């Protein structure tokens, strides 16, 4: 098992390096001038100096190598220092945003909790709704519940978040006035009232994101349950007189959870991606909105770092999914 995990982890390192190279080349080879905003009165030789100060004078491979060092060596040191009060990272150059002139990672750390709250909560809510729907519609295959479930899933697949978002705002915030339409990020949860406010402002974004999750996960759950319900071991379990509950909830459910758990892990990064749009609609200042802001402002270091963080998330959760599959299903482990 350790061997399997090690091998799988080692494979993901070249993947990450390659993705970072793609992102780096895409951003650096594109016809795009970071000096475009500088006034025309600034003489060309001064512009050249500014360009060099941004590290743009050197050959591409040196720029790439330096960026890798910054991202994988200096930033972890900063994090370590922050945690344990050491001083490894003193006087070392960090990835600096062109927009705010402050380290990109600090801004990401500030914005991460909002994204995690909304995305994480919506994912949990989505899974909690999806699993029972999937299980029951597989158990009552072709029943009215199953048909309705299929229809709702189709709708969840087809209605994009940039329509459900404004739609729930119109219904619940404008017409009914029950819930706030924007997310107040300066709110600190100190007592019961602020906690309720926090919950209320989370309802709409969580609802929009959870609809997507529910649609996908319940489909997988249903398909996986259907596969298992027709297996021989189910007939055996029934034949030896086990109660229906034991057959479905213990025997079938445990076996059909194997692919579903990996799908849950695999889909998590996609939810982060989808959160970009949802954050924009509900004005949550998480990392998705930071990415959009950086794109509008032509702030390449921030864009590069954030895009790469999304890639790291995807590779990491792919790894988790593979390992989980190995742990849950012993047949997979030794290929």
């Amino acid at each position, binding site marked *: 098992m350790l061997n399997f995990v090690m091998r799988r982890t080692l494979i993901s390192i070249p993947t990450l390096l390659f993705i970072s190279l793609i992102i780096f080349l895409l951003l650096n080879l594109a016809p795009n001038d970071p000096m475009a905003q500088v006034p025309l009165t600034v003489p060309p030789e001064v512009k050249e100096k500014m360009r060099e100060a941004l590290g743009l004078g050197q050959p591409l491979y040196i720029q790439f190598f330096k960026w890798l060092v910054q991202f994988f060596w200096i930033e972890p040191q900063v994090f370590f220092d922050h945690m344990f009060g050491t001083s490894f990272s003193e006087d070392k150059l960090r990835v600096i945003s062109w927009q705010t002139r402050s380290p990109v990672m600090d801004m990401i750390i500030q914005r991460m909790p909002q994204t995690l709250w909304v995305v994480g909560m919506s994912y949990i809510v989505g899974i909690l709704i999806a699993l029972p729907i999937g299980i029951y519609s597989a158990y009552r295959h072709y029943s009215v519940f199953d048909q309705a479930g299929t229809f709702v899933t*189709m*709708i969840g*697949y087809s209605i994009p978040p940039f*329509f459900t978002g404004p739609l729930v705002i119109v219904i619940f915030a*404008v017409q009914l006035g029950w819930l706030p339409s924007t997310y107040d990020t300066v709110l600190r949860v100190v007592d019961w009232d602020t906690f309720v406010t926090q919950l209320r402002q989370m309802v709409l974004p969580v609802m929009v994101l959870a609809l997507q999750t529910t649609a996908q996960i319940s489909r997988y759950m249903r398909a996986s349950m259907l596969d298992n319900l027709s297996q021989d071991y189910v007939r055996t379990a029934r034949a030896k007189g086990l109660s229906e509950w034991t057959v479905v909830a213990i025997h079938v459910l445990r076996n059909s959870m194997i692919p579903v758990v990996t799908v849950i892990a695999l889909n998590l990064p996609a939810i982060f*991606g989808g959160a970009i749009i949802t954050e924009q609609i509900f004005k949550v200042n998480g990392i998705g909105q930071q*990415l959009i802001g950086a*794109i509008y402002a032509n702030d390449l270091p921030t864009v590069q770092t954030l*895009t790469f963080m999304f890639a790291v998330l*995807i590779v990491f959760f792919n790894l988790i999914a593979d390992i989980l599959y190995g742990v849950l299903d012993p047949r997979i482990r030794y290929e």
Partner: protein
Amino acid sequence: MNDVVIDRSQSGKWLDVWTQFKKHKGALVGSMVFILITLTVIAGPFFWIFEANEINIRQRNEGPSWLHPLGTDQLGRDTFARMIAGGQTSITVGLAAMALSILLGSCIGVIAGYYRRLDGMLMRLTDLFLSLPLLPLLLVMMLLFREPLSEAYGPERGMFVLIVCAIGITSWMPTARIVRGDVLALKEREFILAARSIGTTDTKIILRHILPNVISPILVSATLGIANAIITESALSFLGLGFPPDFPTWGRLLNDAVEYLTLYPERVFWPGLAISLTVLSVNYVGDGIRDALDPRIRGR
């Protein structure tokens, strides 16, 4: 009884597929809705009295009336005319991006499945593309290539080329995987061996014997690809990184409507409904085609 069997063998596979497809109510309704939307969008400009960009500032922000069945926007432009124009762009982008993605996906899938030497490399490439953060990368591509392409082809056509290419390049991976799997299985069959033993070249084997047999997964990916491309294009336009502001697409109209959400909440409804209905109908068609082409389900 005997006649019926002969009749079926003559009519061929596609009639069977059509018979099965007709049984899937959702797919039938879905295809009708999609055809209806497409026809409205194509024929609309010939019958509708207003132009999409015709500004009439005196009639701005009107509600639904007989003259403007969907009302007008903040510049007095007729919403229905803009919906038609937006639909033309959105559906064209969807079809073109789907075509590119299917072309890339089936080429890579067939090559990876057929030539063992290239298989490992191409599948690693597919895995790499699957690990890319697609929406952020699409946004970055929009940011970086918008201006050079606009200068080269004009703002609208440049954007069209960019969006179609960007969506096509980032969505071929599932098709490639499915096609490769099917080709791998087909390659070992006797009819391929027979074709090779009479000296058929690789190109001919692929074109005559392999491609017709992998057409069903390609068709299913194609329908799902349209839905995906329409949603992606609308998402980009919604984030303000798609077509230029005066060029209506459904995503762009939705984005414009969100700004007036508190004053005129009903404006959000139409573009959103159009996107959702198109995607929903295409998804149902895909579902129906999948069932109809699956020989285990067909004929039951």
